């Protein structure tokens, strides 16, 4: 059977709650088979975007298209989407198999077919051995698999994932993240994935939409978002530790246009024998590397450097920046400026 056209399109979609704007005139397209990540800090409206596509919230303005269908006013059940919630939303009184098959059972699919499709979906996410258990008997990671299998079982047009990894511990999160990426490659489904975790966004997303206060800041591939942040917010939000922002290039010996701020990622701050003088204020070892907090003239700067170089608070060293790694932002608007 031919796969339905699975393209999600948000056309100038807005959502207000009691006069407070959660999403503002959002324009967004998810291509067929694409995994698009909506990234942003808490309260930026990213979950609202997902809920708008799911139909759990009604758009105040604009149009939402899934394929050729205008679903703006359709009920959630008529949109043919699946959702994985942050809390997994598993029914505590049902077994894993019953949870996975819930959507099929309420649609009155034949029992034999339900069993077969549940087994298939469970095998896809490697949870076939858990089918007889209740959610209370499952670990966080296992619950997450059941929730994923439930989303897969119905073969919907679009998968909506609302921070599905945020309740897992760091190790399991990294493992599940990789599995999710493989799963997406295998089933080729259209996925809209919401997270506040930039690592998740950069590793999983084919494209990333960065949101702030309900407004789209930048839409691009992970590489574009990383290398050419559209504004100061994107530059600082994506990357850990955050990008250094200096009010001008003068302090670090760069000739920058007036009214331009300088952005430089900690890994691009070079410590050595050349450049301007800097004083070490703090050293934070993070395994093989260390974050070195510096004071350069009146500016504060963080550098990521090998941990084995002996540095201690109060040391004086020299800092240089390579122009190709320096980003310029308008001091007023925060928008990216070109090097002239």
């Amino acid at each position, binding site marked *: 059977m031919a796969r339905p056209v699975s393209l999600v399109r948000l056309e100038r979609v807005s959502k207000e709650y009691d006069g407070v704007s959660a999403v503002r005139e959002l324009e967004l397209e998810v291509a067929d088979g694409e995994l698009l990540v909506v990234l942003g800090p808490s309260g930026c409206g990213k979950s609202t975007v997902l809920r708008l596509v799911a139909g759990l919230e009604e758009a105040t303005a604009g149009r939402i298209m899934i394929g050729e269908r205008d679903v703006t006013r359709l009920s959630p059940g008529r*949109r043919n989407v699946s*959702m994985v919630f942050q809390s997994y939303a598993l029914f505590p009184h049902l077994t894993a198999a019953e949870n996975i098959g819930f959507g099929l059972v*309420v649609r009155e699919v034949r029992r034999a077919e339900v069993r077969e499709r549940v087994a298939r979906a469970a095998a896809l996410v490697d949870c076939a051995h858990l089918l007889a258990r209740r959610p209370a008997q499952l670990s966080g990671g296992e619950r997450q698999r059941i929730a994923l299998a439930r989303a897969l079982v119905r073969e919907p047009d679009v998968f909506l994932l609302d921070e599905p990894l945020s309740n897992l511990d760091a190790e399991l999160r990294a493992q599940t993240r990789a599995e999710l990426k493989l799963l997406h490659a295998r089933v080729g489904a259209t996925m809209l994935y919401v997270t506040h975790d930039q690592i998740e966004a950069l590793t999983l997303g084919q494209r990333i939409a960065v949101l702030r206060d309900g407004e789209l800041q930048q839409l691009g591939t992970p590489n574009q978002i990383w290398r050419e942040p559209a504004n100061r917010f994107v530059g600082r939000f994506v990357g850990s530790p955050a990008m250094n922002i200096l009010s001008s290039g003068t302090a670090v010996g760069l000739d920058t246009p007036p009214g331009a701020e300088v952005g430089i990622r900690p890994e691009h701050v070079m410590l050595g024998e050349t450049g301007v003088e800097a004083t070490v204020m703090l050293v934070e070892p993070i395994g093989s590397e260390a974050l070195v907090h510096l004071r350069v003239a009146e500016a504060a700067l963080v550098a990521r450097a090998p941990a084995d170089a002996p540095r201690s608070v109060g040391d004086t060293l020299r800092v240089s920046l390579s122009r190709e790694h320096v980003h310029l932002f308008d001091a007023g608007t925060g928008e990216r400026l070109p090097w002239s």
Partner: protein
Amino acid sequence: MELRDRRQLALMLAPYLLGLVALVAVPALFTFALALTEYDLIRSPRFIGLDNVRELAGDEIFHTALLNSAVFAAIAVPLRVGAALVLALLLHRRFRGAGSGRAAAVLPTVIPDVAYGLLWLWLLNPLYGPITLFLGWIGPPGKTIWGLALPQFLTHPNDARAAIILMSVFTIGEGFVLFLVARQSLPGELYELAAIEDATAWSVFRRVTLPLLAPILVLLLLRDTILSFQLNFVPALVVTDGGPPPYSTTYLPLFVYRTGFEYLRYGYASAATVLMFVLTAAAVWLQWLVLRRARFASF
């Protein structure tokens, strides 16, 4: 638990335990003892063994009271629990008027029993009671809209029994509040998921709400069964006076009350009370046997 904590716990529990022993346990033991005696408050109790139980076995008024109580429990308990559930499901959301609706659902429960009984005495009056007048007004002359004769709540045996059940269906405040709180504590995401899966309202009720509320439902069914042997006492006394004749609304509590306080047969009344206790326990045990097979949600 440390000694200090134990002492503190004992101190805090003491007033309740003292009351429980003095007002419940000791009188209960007395009742068990009195059940084996003949006692009229004037002469000293005389031990008669199981004579009271034998007499109860052949007492037709007791049989009628027993049957009345069983029928009342069988009809009133599901109606009361069902009404509390339906009202809670209707009123758990926030909307204009929800607060007033909730207050109206709880209000009859907080009205003193006798005042509530007197109110119904007026509502059910065959001449000027609003219920009878309304039924007569909407139907053909002298009949209801279903073509049946107008109910005679205070004079016809079955109508009177129906009236007592009707009265009990409005005093469901506690059950309503429990269901309301339980429903409001269910995670909203489960319902959102059901909406995304295109589940119908009935399907959501049957497959999500009801199983998740099952622990509360069982609790209320058991509690209401116990309560049903007591809560018809005031209505039967104030509204129907145990009648219409011969004993249409004489339930076990009224039978015990009359036997003890009007006929001064304390030993016999105690035996009936013990039997009532045994029957209540048996009813609860039977329900438990059936209900424990059901699968309950575990949060």
